[in-house]
């Protein structure tokens, strides 16, 4: 298993944002992580990437215990991510943005190898022509592209995408889906939080669904989506809204 969580829990004061989530992900899987707004998806990704320390439960990455490990250690163990609210490094160039995880991640590249890795990753998302521009000058969509290129520069084993496809227009969405499919074809394990159900159906053979911090379904995507608890959870959200 590349990722195993055992009863992973995160409390914010009285609120239990992630409530005893146990999950196992095999190498090469593309897993959809679904659930209504506020159900704890981002918090779960934060626990896996080390952005947050769990209040309880265990986390294993690539068979090693990483419970409570700092994010830099988890990154060096081969986990990379994008953020729901995109986070680029605005005062650095595109090239420098992408250099960072290649230089500090699992491979610790420098010099020619680093330059080659940076070129590869920028061209994978179609930004290679603008390598020397300042990242702060990019449009929102290009910032999302850059963020993915940066995550890929670490050559991660596990990639966490938090609504990376959100906000793309139909053409960009098709490109994005094709790109993720290609990454998966190269053997990358991906966990993707996504609200665009068509994209989930297209990319994820398996999905898990969260509601109020708990996992309420885990299985083949079409079955998970047809589960009556899942339907109730989404309907419940509609009724609240």
């Amino acid at each position, binding site marked *: 298993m590349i990722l195993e969580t055992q009863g992973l829990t995160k409390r914010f004061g009285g609120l239990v944002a992630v409530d005893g989530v146990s999950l196992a992900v095999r190498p090469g899987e593309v897993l959809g992580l679904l659930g209504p707004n506020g159900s704890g998806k981002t918090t779960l990704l934060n626990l896996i*990437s*080390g*952005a947050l320390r769990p209040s309880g439960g265990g986390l294993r990455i690539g068979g090693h215990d990483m419970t409570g490990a*700092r*994010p*830099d250690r988890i*990154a*060096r163990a081969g986990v*990379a*991510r994008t953020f729901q609210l*995109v*986070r*680029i*490094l*605005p*005062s*650095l160039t595109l090239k*420098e943005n992408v*250099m*960072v*995880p290649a*230089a*500090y*991640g*699992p491979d610790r590249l*420098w010099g020619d190898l680093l330059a080659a890795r940076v070129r590869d990753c920028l061209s994978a998302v179609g930004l290679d022509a603008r390598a020397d521009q*300042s990242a*702060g*000058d*990019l*449009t*929102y*969509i290009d*910032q999302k592209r850059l963020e993915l290129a*940066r995550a890929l520069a*670490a050559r991660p084993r596990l990639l966490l995408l938090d609504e990376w496809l959100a*906000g793309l227009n139909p053409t960009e969405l098709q490109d994005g889906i094709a790109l993720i499919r290609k990454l998966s074809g190269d053997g990358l394990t991906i966990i993707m939080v996504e609200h665009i159900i068509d994209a989930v159906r297209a990319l994820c053979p398996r999905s898990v669904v969260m509601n109020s911090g708990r996992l309420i379904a885990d299985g083949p995507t079409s079955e998970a989506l047809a589960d009556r608890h899942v339907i109730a959870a989404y309907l419940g959200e509609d009724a609240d809204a």
Partner: protein
Amino acid sequence: MGYVFSAIAFALLAVLPLFAGDYGTGLLVGLMGYVVLASAWALFSGPTRYVSLATVAFFGVGAYVVAVLNEVLPYPVVLFCAALTGAGMALVVGLSTLRLAGIYFVIFTFGLAELVRQLITWFEVNVTGTLGRYIFLDLTARDIYWQLLALAVLTLGAGWWIRRSRLGLALRVIGDDEVVAAHAGIPVARTKLVLFVISATIITLVGAVQAPRWVYVEPSIVFNPTVSFLTVIMALLGGANRLWGPVAGAVPLFLLFEWLSARFPDHFSILLGLMFLAVVYALPDGVLAALERIRRPSVLKETKA
């Protein structure tokens, strides 16, 4: 080409005090002191954007180590002890404060200088029973100037090297977004700590090297908060993110402040405070960067969707 130019400039600076009179050499000592202080401050605070007002805490401790040890140990050993004390103190301070964000860090570092001064005063009065100390070292103003010049070369050399290294990249990432830095594999706390210690050690050495100029030393003399504020203004105004920025800020501002403090001794603190606020709010990237922005205003950032 750059090396040749630097070597010539260095040689010229080294012979300068031979032609300057006593007053001129005294001025050069003060000037070179601030060149090193501003450059060393910028090593850490430039890329990370942590505005530290602890400069005089380290500077004063450096001077005090010399005051305490100058009669018991040979001079090079005294300097070494000063550096070690500064590094040790920076390690403790860094471990306890580098998690603080923004304004809290500024306030803590400001308080630190006062705390150290009160501690030393208390210790001297209650334990050793002497408030003031004398420094009898056979060092001329020229000797001190040359030591400071060497420190300046060392500091700029370190800045040059860090800029080209993995460490420099890490610091710039930390300055932009610590969360991203950590998720890219950068050990954020350790990186900040290393730079803070390097910067503080150099600052401590400036205090140690300059101490013999005072002859008589007591806490209120060596822990003068003006030093911290001047350093910040010089580094920020010149541009703390450029290798030569702090130097470019230190030279004209040192001369300006010398003139101001002689001309308006009663209002100097107010002028200083106003300049500090103006620089921190209006020109955090420095004058050079502001000029560049004015020359090419077309590059406007696109805002997030």
